């Protein structure tokens, strides 16, 4: 009981010191809880949306596995509606046309719709959609050239009633005038909707007034959905997919759920990094508290407190801190989730705070993470406190510097670091990507732990070098700052170690991404012969209309089709597998100079020939000349294809791809089952490159969803894309770095308090306030730079090893972005300066007399 009381007293006596550790816990827990609340809310939003759209029973065409991507929704005869309507227990049956892959273009020729990756949906304005949406203004579409658009999209894209729109579908471009705006009855997560007059929808989206995509059935009151489903199935017989609302909802949730899970775990991963960094901060805080209280603890031991009691009193403090921090963090996490939702709203994913979902498990998870991290972190300092001898009460303790690093630590640290280094080297030297990544992950883990253990040992040496390099210009103030940073190597090591983790990740990611871009661009230079790449920027593949526009462009020597065909391949070894085969024009062999290990690639484009990748050939023991049997999904079966070439897999582009000619695919697939082009390539006539580029851009002007780029633009786009992704990752890592900065602030603040007398002495003998502040700032800068040296060094090692492993996958070029690393290094100095603002101010303001008087 008394132990608890002393813990409580000491906890409240050190409020200020606890505050920073508390903030670290709050941040980590907030990130964890924020992620959970945010993704749960996103789930709720989707669930509600699905729930609002689902009919009691839906009749759709039977789904074929690995269906060809024709860009056309699978359809049913419209006559089915009456058949279903006649079934007993059916209150109403509606024929629905639903196309989730159209592009809408406004009068200015710009694409209307989200930049968030959500598909643009076109459907008929029938009773079914009107259960989910209602007319907000204007009137319903009555003629074929009229349509509604959802109010959210209209607001974003600045579309008003009376505006003209183009709806680009596989069947062609359909022009409409907006007659009104429709609003969702519940929150729409962000897919733009255009709503056509019912018959116009069938013609425009499916090419015939007699086709629909599904029949939506409402059951009569009192008849269960499942029963209606069974009756409809019985009435229609065979090949339809018939689902109840519940089944339908579950299927859609599965689709979205996978994506949401990825998002959730990625964000939790970053939260985990922040928690790890927070642990460093807490270890350091408690170590310092224990060191400062050595006398007090000695006194408690002298008057009879047992080791365990002392130990427990420190852990109790940690428990208090963890609990308070976690509780605040849970609240902050909910705030964070709301802020994220606002952010989503601004990029077009509509989320309403009324859907805010806080699962019971969320606060539990926050509390467990926060308390566990704190208590684990306080474990070592608590043990150290328990070991304080009663004699310590009698000694003039002052500030005990930590003794020479233990032999155990040295040995363990060296062992881990060397082991990790060896694993990294092994990863770099590995011949197989599988072995490489195994060694790589082992190496990452060992070197990280090793660096954490060795950090304090390096502190003295590295800080000495940094002092010579950076601090010398600041004269004696710089020298003293360097000495101060070195006097508590364990503390400096732990403080810098927290920063190290974040910077190691930043460093390695920058090396890997720069290498990725450099390798890709190198390979583009070496192997791509096409002048232009036509690519889609939306969900919509290249429609026949757009493909025709490309082919009709003047000044092109050739245009290459490139589609992915679903094929079931049976190999001579008796196995069969579903494969995606690239169906390309023979000119593709010139557009991408893929290397072969056997055969000639051009031969693969002959009728009923194909090429496969190295590993597929190896797996099935294939040689050039062997025959494979193919079933083109939705087309011919038992097609015999002759293996003409085996391609090398030491590449980044089309790795392991199988090729057949576009003509072969066309020969074995009916026209409506022929997949659309994924991309297209083109080559200009000799010496007319610039003109051809302009002409291509002009041809694609009516299709803003497609983008044409020449090699330089394509490289730039690739670089931008990687850069954007990297920025998102850096932003998430910023959390870990902020927590690390709190650690630096904490260490400095404690050091300033510990050195009150020194500060007084220096001020008495003539150190000015400004010099005093500078001294604290420089110490902070040196600690931060030490963390940067460790982190970037580690990151560089990781990055290089990772690139060597990836080189087996075609990432041939190592590019170390020295400029970026330099900026990060300089940035850490700034981080140090920022961390020192408050401690330096306090040191400067300390009263000389009081400082001298402090016992």
């Amino acid at each position, binding site marked *: 009981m008394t132990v608890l009381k002393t813990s409580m007293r000491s906890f409240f006596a050190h409020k200020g010191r606890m505050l920073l550790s508390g903030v670290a816990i709050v941040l980590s827990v907030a990130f964890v809880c924020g992620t959970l609340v945010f993704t749960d809310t996103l789930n709720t939003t989707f669930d509600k949306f699905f729930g609002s759209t689902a009919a009691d029973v839906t009749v759709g065409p039977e789904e074929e596995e690995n269906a060809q991507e024709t860009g056309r929704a699978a359809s049913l005869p419209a006559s089915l509606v009456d058949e279903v309507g006649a079934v007993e227990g059916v209150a109403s049956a509606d024929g629905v046309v639903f196309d989730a892959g159209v592009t809408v273009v406004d009068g200015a020729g710009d694409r209307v719709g989200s930049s968030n990756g959500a598909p643009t949906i076109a459907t008929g304005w029938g009773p079914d959609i009107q259960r989910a949406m209602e007319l907000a203004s204007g009137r319903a579409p009555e003629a074929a050239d009229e349509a509604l658009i959802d109010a959210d999209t209209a607001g974003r894209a600045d579309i008003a009633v009376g505006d003209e729109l183009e709806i680009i579908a596989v069947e062609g471009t359909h022009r409409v005038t907006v007659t009104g705006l429709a609003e969702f009855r519940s929150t729409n997560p962000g897919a733009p909707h255009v709503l056509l007059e019912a018959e116009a929808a069938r013609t425009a989206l499916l090419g015939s007034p007699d086709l629909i995509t599904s029949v939506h059935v409402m059951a009569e009151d009192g008849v269960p959905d499942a029963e209606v489903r069974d009756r409809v199935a019985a009435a229609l017989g065979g090949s339809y997919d018939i689902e109840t609302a519940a089944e339908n909802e579950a299927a859609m949730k599965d689709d979205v759920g996978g994506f949401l899970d990825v998002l959730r775990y990625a964000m939790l991963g970053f939260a985990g990094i922040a928690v790890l960094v927070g642990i460093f901060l807490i270890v350091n805080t408690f170590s310092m508290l224990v060191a400062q209280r050595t006398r007090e603890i000695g006194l408690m031991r002298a008057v009879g407190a047992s080791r365990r009691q002392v130990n427990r009193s420190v852990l109790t403090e940690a428990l208090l801190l963890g609990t308070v921090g976690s509780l605040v963090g849970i609240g902050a996490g909910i705030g964070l989730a709301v802020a994220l939702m606002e952010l989503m709203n601004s990029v077009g994913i509509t989320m309403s705070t009324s859907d805010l979902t806080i699962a019971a498990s969320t606060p539990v998870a926050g509390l467990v993470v926060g308390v566990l991290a704190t208590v684990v972190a306080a474990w070592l300092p608590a043990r150290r406190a328990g070991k304080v001898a009663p004699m310590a009460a009698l000694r003039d303790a002052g500030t005990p510097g930590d003794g020479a690093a233990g032999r155990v630590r040295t040995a363990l640290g060296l062992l881990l670091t060397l082991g990790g280094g060896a694993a990294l080297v092994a990863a770099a030297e590995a011949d197989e990507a599988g072995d490489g990544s195994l060694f790589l992950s082992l190496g990452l883990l060992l070197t990280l732990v090793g660096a954490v253990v060795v950090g304090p040992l390096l502190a003295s040496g590295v800080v000495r070098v940094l002092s010579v390099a950076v601090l010398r210009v600041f004269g004696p103030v710089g020298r003293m700052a360097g000495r101060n940073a070195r*006097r508590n190597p364990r503390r400096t090591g732990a403080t810098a170690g927290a920063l190290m983790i974040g910077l190691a990740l930043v460093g390695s990611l920058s090396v890997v991404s720069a290498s990725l871009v450099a390798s890709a661009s190198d390979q583009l230079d070496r192997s791509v012969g096409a002048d232009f790449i036509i690519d889609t920027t939306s969900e919509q593949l290249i429609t026949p209309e757009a493909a025709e526009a490309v082919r009709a462009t003047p000044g092109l020597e050739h245009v290459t089709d490139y589609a992915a065909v679903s094929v079931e391949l049976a190999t001579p070894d008796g196995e069969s597998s579903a494969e995606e085969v690239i169906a390309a024009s023979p000119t593709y062999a010139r557009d991408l100079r893929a290397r072969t290990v056997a055969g000639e690639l051009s031969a693969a484009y002959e009728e009923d020939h194909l090429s496969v990748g190295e590993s597929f050939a190896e797996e099935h023991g294939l040689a050039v000349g062997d025959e494979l049997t193919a079933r083109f999904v939705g087309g011919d079966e038992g097609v015999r294809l002759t293996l003409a070439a085996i391609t090398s897999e030491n590449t980044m582009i089309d790795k392991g791809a199988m090729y057949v000619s576009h003509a072969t695919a066309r020969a074995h697939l009916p026209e409506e089952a022929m997949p659309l082009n994924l991309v297209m390539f083109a080559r200009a006539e000799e010496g007319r490159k610039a003109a051809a580029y302009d002409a291509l851009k002009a041809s694609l002007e009516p299709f803003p969803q497609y983008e044409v780029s020449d090699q330089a633009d394509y490289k730039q786009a690739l670089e931008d894309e990687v850069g954007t992704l990297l920025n998102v990752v850096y932003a998430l890592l910023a959390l870990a770095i902020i927590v690390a900065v709190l650690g630096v602030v904490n260490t400095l603040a404690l050091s300033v308090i510990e050195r009150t007398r020194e500060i007084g*002495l*220096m*001020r*008495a*003998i003539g150190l000015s306030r400004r010099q005093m502040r500078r001294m604290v700032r420089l110490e902070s800068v040196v600690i931060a730079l030490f963390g940067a040296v460790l982190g970037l060094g580690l990151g560089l090692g990781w990055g290089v090893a990772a690139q060597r492993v990836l080189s087996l996958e075609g990432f041939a070029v190592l590019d170390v972005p020295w400029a970026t690393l330099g900026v990060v290094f300089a940035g850490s100095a700034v981080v140090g300066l920022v961390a020192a603002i408050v401690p330096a101010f306090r040191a400067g303001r300390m009263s000389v007399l009081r400082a*001298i008087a402090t016992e």
Partner: protein
Amino acid sequence: MATAVFETRTAAAARAEGVVKAYGSGETRVVALDRVTADIRQGGFTAIMGPSGSGKSTLMHCLAGLDTVTSGRIWVGDTEITGLKDKKLTRLRRDSIGFIFQAFNLLPTLNALENITLPMDIAGRKPDKEWLDRVVSTVGLGERLKHRPSQLSGGQQQRVAVARALAARPAIIFGDEPTGNLDSRAGAEVLGFLRRSVDELGQTIVMVTHDPVAAAHADRVLYLADGRIVDDMANPTADLVLDRMRGFDARGRVS
């Protein structure tokens, strides 16, 4: 007459005129220094004595520019320091004043030599090599200049502090019980150095002490009681000082 005033000013290393130092206000007002006027002569070794709470430390802190006064004026050399801003006060301490405290005189991260030259390093001045050698040999530290404070005994640490105070050739050195933490032998040694620096190097020293033996090394002893100077004794000996203190104590008891 004007010249005479000027001469007394220059002859004084420090001077206090009607200095009052009070804490708090109204009924809780405590007067630590009550209209103190004193001259510290150049090249002299002055001891300030008095019972606990007499204001002797406060007087020293005020003279050294470490503490502000409630009213009155203080000069160090020709500079009036009352009313100076922190920046100028700091510079004055750095360039014209040396300090020796009772304990914790040295920075643990610097070795003995670095501690000695610290005030000059801070000021960005090169130490006068010859003078430094002389100071170091005077205090007898030659062998231990590369040692850290933790590797030195208490007496040696105080000698380093003395050397630091002397090395910058300040106009005046203030000592706050510089031998308070030392045994009598080490204390005598340090006092010996202070004495020699006055005699041989012409240094001005003001030392607060409660030890009659220490005070006996001074040329002059100022006695403070209840914030006032109650006696000014020249050429003190330990016995004389002790006698005088007994006298004050007795009077204190009677009144």
